[in-house]
């Protein structure tokens, strides 16, 4: 009560000064007054009340119709005051949610973390950047200790928290597979059953699974409806789409996946990605496949990790630093 009284005195003085001088100084102070009031959660109707009281004290002879009109104004402000308070409480709630999501995002980072393996024969570059706080893309490396390297790249159709929850499930299913059994077709077949049983029918997951054998330099792979990657033939200096058929995970429990194989020569590159890369946009225009390949080519003389980072920077800039979809890019390059 005492602080409100103080404000009344303050307001009265400001008002009096303004009526007398009508200068900008008093108006500036009015602005300060309104900011201070907002800091103290004071509703507009209270300001009007202070205004009415100030007028009454300054002009005891104030005509009745002015007084009545002021009361009328006060009444019309009540709902604005309520909306203002609701706004304040929704804002607090939003901050709470934001901090909860950032905790969850950190947790997800830990849960889904994968270590990029150090393999002598293959130079590996990997990068995954979420569009929002939570990442709906997922990539994972597994080594069997006998020269085989498994690489999974997956994308949940959808973004944000639901996609992230879904990915955690995929990660734990994959962790439970014995390291001896890394055949891409077997892994996709088994994940398909997990997804079909546990995930809502409206949610789809695409996945590419590849297995690089560094003894024989063969790359075997299967795809569950995943965005096609690219293969770069060093001798011909040509890219080729790795487009293989396969149904997305979770549609039917009976789905089986065909496995393909490729011999990898020195200098060849395998490029795996999600649609966040191929569906980059410049304004309203989707970029062309050639543009992506051109950019990759441009940086391909660098170590693989620097290549993926430079490609990302290129498209980040192209899209005004605002990703529309989660962006994951993996490049494997045969060294020796």
């Amino acid at each position, binding site marked *: 009560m005492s602080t409100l009284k103080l404000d009344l005195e303050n307001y009265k003085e400001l008002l009096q000064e303004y009526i007398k001088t009508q200068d900008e100084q008093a108006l500036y102070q009015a602005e300060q007054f309104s900011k201070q009031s907002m800091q103290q959660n004071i509703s507009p109707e209270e300001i009007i*009340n202070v205004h009415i009281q100030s007028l009454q004290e300054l002009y005891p002879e104030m005509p009745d119709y002015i007084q009545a009109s002021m009361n009328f104004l006060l009444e019309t402000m009540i709902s604005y005051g309520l909306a203002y308070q609701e706004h304040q409480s929704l804002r607090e709630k939003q901050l709470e949610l934001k901090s909860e999501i950032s905790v969850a995002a950190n947790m997800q980072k830990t849960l889904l973390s994968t270590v990029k393996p150090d393999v002598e024969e293959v130079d590996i570059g990997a990068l995954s950047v979420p569009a929002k706080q939570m990442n709906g893309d997922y990539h994972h490396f597994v080594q069997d200790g006998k020269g085989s390297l498994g690489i999974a790249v997956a994308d949940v159709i959808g973004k944000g928290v639901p996609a992230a929850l879904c990915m955690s499930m995929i990660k734990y299913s994959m962790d439970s597979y014995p390291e001896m059994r890394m055949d891409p077709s077997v892994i996709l077949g088994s994940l398909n059953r997990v997804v079909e049983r546990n995930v809502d029918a409206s949610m789809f997951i695409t996945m590419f699974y590849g297995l690089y054998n560094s003894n024989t330099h063969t790359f075997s792979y299967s795809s569950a409806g995943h965005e096609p990657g690219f293969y770069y033939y060093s001798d011909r200096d040509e890219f080729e789409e790795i487009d293989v058929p396969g149904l997305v995970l979770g549609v039917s429990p009976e789905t089986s996946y065909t496995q393909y194989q490729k011999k990898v020569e020195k200098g060849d590159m395998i490029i795996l990605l999600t649609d966040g890369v191929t569906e980059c946009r410049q304004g309203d225009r989707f970029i062309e496949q050639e543009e992506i390949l051109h950019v990759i080519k441009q940086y391909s003389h660098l170590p693989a990790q620097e290549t993926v980072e430079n490609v990302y920077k290129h498209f980040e800039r192209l899209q005004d630093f605002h990703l529309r979809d989660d962006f994951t890019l993996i490049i494997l390059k045969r060294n020796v």
Partner: protein
Amino acid sequence: MDFQSCVNIKKEWDIVGARQLGRDIARKIGFGTVDQARIATAISELARNIYLYAGTGKVCFEALEDMNQKGIRILAIDSGPGIKELSQVMEDGFSTSGGLGAGLPGVKRLMDDFDITSEEGKGTEITVIKWLR
């Protein structure tokens, strides 16, 4: 509880009657202009809920006075369909009566004490109190 003054809510016009009676009582108790306006707005909201969702009901008023403080208690009672999800209607931003920032959370903000009981198919009873400061 012994409520002396009640207004039956049957038509929209009755909302005005309830506001008027509530404001008169609040003024007599000694509430200032701002609080009178807040109390009237809360009454409006309660009465309009009855008019829109229950069809009929009543809003009653009682002046409170004990050793320490004075106040007004308002009871809104109807035998309408009741409210199934109380926690939902008490949530900000849920209000369906079209009144921005109002609804039951608004009534709660306008007043000091707020209590609601509701049973599906039987009706709703809301009691609110505003204390004189």
